[in-house]
């Protein structure tokens, strides 16, 4: 039962991420490039952060690598509904 609950929570989290988008806060960004360097797809995340745009790249799998690696908390997930609001 406990395992089921954990699995359910993980799936929900996954779903939220799949529907989500990575959003930068460019007041925090210093263009160090750690995000772009660690993106497994090779997306230039840093450029989006410079321009203050959500990372709406068709190849972005929202794996969260850039969010986790950024040393300054520039990037976070938002669900599509909240960014479209």
């Amino acid at each position, binding site marked *: 039962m406990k395992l089921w609950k954990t699995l359910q929570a993980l799936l929900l989290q996954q779903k939220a991420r799949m529907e989500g988008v990575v959003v930068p806060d460019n007041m925090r960004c210093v263009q160090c*490039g750690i995000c772009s360097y660690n993106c497994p797809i090779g997306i230039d995340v840093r450029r989006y952060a410079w321009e203050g745009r959500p990372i709406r790249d068709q190849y972005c799998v929202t794996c969260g690598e850039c969010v986790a690696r950024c040393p300054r908390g520039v990037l976070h997930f938002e669900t599509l509904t909240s960014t479209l609001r």
Partner: protein
Amino acid sequence: MQYVLVGTGVAAVAAAEAIRRMDPKGRILMVGMEKDGYYSRPGLAYYLTGEIPERMLYPFRPEDFRRLDITLIHDRVEGIDPAARRVRLARRGWVPYDRLLLATGARAARPDLPGIDLEGVVYLDNLEHTRHLLRLARRAKEAVVVGGGITALELAEGLHARGLKVHYLMRGDRYWRRVLDEVESRVVEARLEEMGIRLHHHTEIAEILGKKGKVVGVRTKDGRVLRCQMVGVAVGIRPRIELAQEAGLETDRGILVNEYMETSTPGIYAAGDVAQVWDPKAGKHVLDSLWPMARRQGEAAGYNMAGQRRPYQRTTPLNVTRLAHITTAIMGLVGQRAADPDAGMVRGDSEVWRELPDAILAQKSEEVNYIRLMVGERTILGAVVMGDQSLSRPLYTLIDRQVDITPIKARLLAPDAPLGEILADFWAQVSRELGE
């Protein structure tokens, strides 16, 4: 229209982008002494730790400069002739300008110490310094680091990451006491000690010891000798104001500019670490050494140089950095009451942080996740957020927009108040009204 931008850092690049938006035809010359051109100076800390390779430090590709139609010139500006509106370059001679931007940044201060010129004394000030530092670090085994801010810690952590045994010397009784409170300093220090960095409080260098021109150790003022092959120095920065001074521009600690980033001389603007900007709210000229603010200043300067009349809107100072692996956000007024012997302006610093707000302190600490609030009469004046950053964005908005927190003030100040929950609930109520 000919625009000459002196400097190749973020302020100059942001100015060039703004100019180009307003003036598609004007000629933009960007003159810099550094042959590396525009790179992320804060990124040097991560190059030092090995988290990114050198090539990642460049946010712009050559095609970006071509798209903006900027002519990059690697040369040194030796003088300004404001009457004739021209600058003298070391190799090219006189170059005319219609609008001139001074974005010359700041340089690391060199303490007046015996042995300061020995090989092995290093700074984390520009890319050239960092390359030199990395070359030396390959052969060195021990290092001593001095200084009291973010850069000193970046040096200590970076040299540690490169396998050196690091001694970190502080003149005071704890780390960065001008900005951090006692709990915050201790959290950082405990982490540094866990990593294996040796901390020495109340310790100053009397002399850097050398042999055949190279560092072999330091002698402290209390007479101890620490063996080392490198000495990392980050005791503050000095805005590069010499050009402006020689040209007769008004200067203080930086080049004085008004809200439109104009200096006292028509046609000449300044932005970034070198600019001391008029802040109407504070009623004085303020120095900030924060990268995102330098970008905004450069942008404002660019618009005004291209004929727009757009004041620079100074926002609440925010710096997010990593102190001993803990992501830390510092915003607004967080100043400490006690005098800091390691005082002076450092990179990633704002003078505002040093001012003591008339505020009551509320704090909450859970392991590494830590929030400190400076609560004023009706608003939150400043905050330090360590670890989990999910509340730091809302907090920044509450501070910057001076949101009335009267409904939650009493609860925030109650002993052992669950600050995170109270703030999250409050944010859920007000964020929509604020359009966030």
